[in-house]
């Protein structure tokens, strides 16, 4: 397991190559990108605030729960903080496993709990000004279905 909370961008290709290097067969991954949108709603940039210390612990707990549930050979989580422009990468979750079903399930599980348990907050900047993003009920429902 390797977890990073960082300002810098990341290289998905290098991360996937590292996960696949053990030759275990399957690597499922997810990349979240700052949505552009359109019209007055168009997002120009986004600022990500987090709770240093708790963030890393929350992510480690989520990954540990995934590792307990499935047989995984490698997990990598990267979440950026600070100000990001539309189109920039925000988050990477990659999971290597012998079986693709486990890799997919664990990757989605980690994303669902990251969205609802890890202390990050997004503030969007549009032409109309800046506003904090509201939490979505669909994210809570996505996390609940694993219980």
């Amino acid at each position: 397991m390797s977890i990073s909370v960082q300002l810098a961008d990341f290289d998905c290709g290098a991360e996937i190559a590292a996960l696949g290097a053990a030759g275990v067969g399957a690597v499922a991954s997810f990349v979240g990108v700052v949505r552009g949108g359109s019209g007055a709603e168009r997002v120009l940039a986004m600022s990500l605030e987090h709770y240093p210390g708790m963030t890393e612990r929350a992510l480690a707990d989520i990954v540990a729960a995934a590792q307990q549930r499935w047989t995984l050979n490698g997990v990598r989580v990267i979440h950026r903080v600070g100000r990001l422009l539309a189109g920039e990468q925000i988050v990477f979750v990659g999971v290597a496993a012998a079986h693709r079903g486990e890799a997919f399930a664990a990757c989605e599980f980690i994303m669902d709990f990251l969205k609802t348990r890890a202390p990050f907050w997004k503030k969007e900047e549009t032409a109309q000004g800046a506003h904090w993003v509201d939490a979505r009920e669909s994210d809570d429902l996505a996390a609940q279905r694993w219980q």
Partner: protein
Amino acid sequence: MSLNLLYFASLREALGVERENLPLPAEATIAGVRALLVARGGEWQRLASPRIRAALNQALAGEDAALKAGDELAFFPPVTGG
């Protein structure tokens, strides 16, 4: 003999406070601290909402959690990362 309080995101902005030290209250639970803060009135009443979550020493915690001097107690709105 005090608590380290932290506030994040929209709550931090509304309160205009990022962190403060608070003497350990008589009712030394998260609920007790929350009641004290809400009593400040104005924007502090936001803390009355159950949507404002609490984390004790960097882990999500329930309202009954007991507090001791030196604890780090954070309040924040629902998370929106990922």
